[in-house]
């Protein structure tokens, strides 16, 4: 019964994605391997991520989906033992190339984390942090504009416009997560990576964020890691299934959920493990 409802929803989303047959490849990975010390965390991953679509990474915990997500803006650089090899491209440019500045890369490929992590500063300061360090705005006026635009973009403006100078940590969980999304889009990235953004939220807050993701895809390319298959079905156009460090299959979301090619995918989406 539960499954059936998901299926119909999936079809609806899938149908909308097929109405836009033309797409561009925003990011791509070829033969990506990741080692954490002696552990081989990701094995030869090949994937294309389409522009202005939502791509969902699903799979059981420890399958490598978050690891791969963190390769896409080189967040793994902060972990000493982590070694990434293979080919990862953003707009046909190798992001692990020496000429690429990781600071600039992360401005182009933003990230939203599992647990909302607003800085212990005011809401306003949270939003302008990125634009300020990248020098994207000059003067108070421009910063004010960015704050309003980003908060509107994250659907948070009406809730917080009267208390922009209050601490960001005083907001509710869902608001905090949308604040983090607003903070990410304030830098106007091209790609937004989301690492299980709703796992710590209640259903209503989750619904808010999911709506937001759907709106954001018109301007940004979005990659989302999720534990929740219904969520993947609801928000994404493409879905990639990871299992034990291997990218098992990647396809239109509708296909993955209705007609998986691999039996491991089949097993996972029917709830046999995970």
């Amino acid at each position, binding site marked *: 019964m539960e499954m059936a409802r998901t299926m119909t929803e999936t079809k609806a989303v899938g149908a909308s994605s097929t109405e836009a047959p033309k797409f561009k490849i925003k990011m791509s990975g070829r033969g990506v391997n990741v080692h954490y010390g002696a552990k081989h965390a990701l094995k030869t991953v090949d994937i294309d991520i389409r522009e202005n679509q939502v791509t969902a990474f699903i799979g059981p915990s420890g399958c490598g989906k978050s690891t791969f997500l963190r390769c896409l803006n080189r*967040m793994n650089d902060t972990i000493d033992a982590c070694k990434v090899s293979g080919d990862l491209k953003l707009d046909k440019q190798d992001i692990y190339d020496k000429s690429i500045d990781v600071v600039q890369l992360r401005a182009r490929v*933003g990230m939203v*984390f599992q647990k909302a992590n*607003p*800085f212990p*500063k005011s809401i306003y300061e949270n939003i302008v*942090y990125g634009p300020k*360090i990248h020098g994207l705005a000059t003067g108070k006026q421009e910063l004010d504009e960015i704050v309003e635009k980003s908060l509107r973009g994250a659907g948070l403006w009406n809730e917080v416009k009267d208390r922009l100078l209050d601490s960001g940590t005083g907001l509710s969980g869902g608001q905090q997560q949308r604040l*983090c999304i607003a903070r990410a889009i304030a*830098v106007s990235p091209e790609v937004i990576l989301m690492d299980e953004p709703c796992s710590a939220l209640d259903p209503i807050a989750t619904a808010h964020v999911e709506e937001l993701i759907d709106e954001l895809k018109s301007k940004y390319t979005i990659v989302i890691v999720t534990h929740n298959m219904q969520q993947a079905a609801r928000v994404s156009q493409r879905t990639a299934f990871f299992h034990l460090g291997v990218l098992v299959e990647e396809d239109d979301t509708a296909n993955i959920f209705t007609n998986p090619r691999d039996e491991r995918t089949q097993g996972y989406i029917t709830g046999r493990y995970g």
Partner: protein
Amino acid sequence: MDISVVFLAVLVLSVLGMQVGRSRAMAVAGGQARALHSRAGYYGAFVALATALPAFMVLFLWTAVEPTVIQALVRARLPAEIQALQADQLSLVLTTIENLAYRNIAPSQSQPYLTSAATLMREMHATANWLMVGVCMLVALGGFFLSRGRITVAFRARNTVEAVVKALMIVCSSIAILTTVGIVMSMLVESLHFFAEVSPLDFFFGLVWDPRFAGAARADQTGQFGLIPLMWGTLFISFVAMLVAVPIGLLSAVYMSEYAGPKFRKAAKPLLEVLAGIPTVVYGFFALITIGPALRDIGAVFGLDISSTSVLCAGLTMGIMIIPFVSSLSDDIINAVPQSLRDASYGLGATQSETIRQVVLPAALPGIVGACLLAVSRALGETMIVVMAAGIAAKLTANPFDSVTTMTVKIVAQLTGDLEFNSPQTLVAFALGLTLFVITLGLNVMALAIVRKYREKYD
């Protein structure tokens, strides 16, 4: 009979009680250890405790009270005209008598009443000693036999022993409170004596420190006891110390926790902490023979006249001592900032230093402020470095190349050498000590509260 002999005798009896209690318990149980409520050893411990504890208590109280009682008795037998003397002169007389009686130090002017009083005191002391031995042994034996008599099969020896042990532990815990009470009371009492002679207004707001010598003190020449110059010197030197320790300590902590690889950290961190393990008297000597002359030479190059006991010298040395204190506290605090905040900042494309300066340090600020307050309190109370490397003249100067003096220097100066507990020259040290204690206590309470609140925030 010496106190230590009584102590040992009670101890021996107590050990004996251990054996007796155990065998008595086995006897009442008819050799069946299982019949007893507790294991046989607990009955032994019960007898041992019942023997030793009351006797030790009597011993302790006796030693504490005896001198006061004897003094009062002797005083009551002194000639009437002596008894009519003022309190401080009377106490001087009594001290003389005690010296004569116990330490055989003859007074400068021998008086017949002194000798007779001393003889009386010595006799009383001897009698009291025998009495003490008798009472102690009686109490010990009483405890021994009473407790032995209480041993039955059903007697809950373990519960009793554990209750006593627990009570002892509570007493041990209260020593911390007693120490604080002792500190406050002892300094308060002497400070009140001081304030009886010198007005608190003159002390707390006086601008001149010139106590004169204790011996030369006459009614018209008590000297001036202004706290302000000492307080200024203390704050000035501590300020210079913080100017050295906070940037170096904080930057070291940042590097250790954010940049350094595990190998570098493992080598450098303990090395830096060696600075904290070096006794302060060594720092004082270092200031005296290395830093002072070095600063003077450097000053000479620039045509500056730097005193060898300059504020700079004492402050710099103290700063070096405090570096590891600031750095290890800050290190802990920076490590407590959650990684998720750093990730958020990196995810937005901030560089590591931007993340540290704009996210990590502001988040850690309350904790770091707490750590710095603790460091300030440490600097204010530091004694040996300033005694050896700072000046002795109480000056109100803002020139860091000049020398100033501090409260701790003056406490040491007033309390070493000959003490007269009735002259303001000695008593002022207690008022200074009390002031220092109150200030550092305030800083510590504040700092510990801030640090604790900070820890709770990120736990």
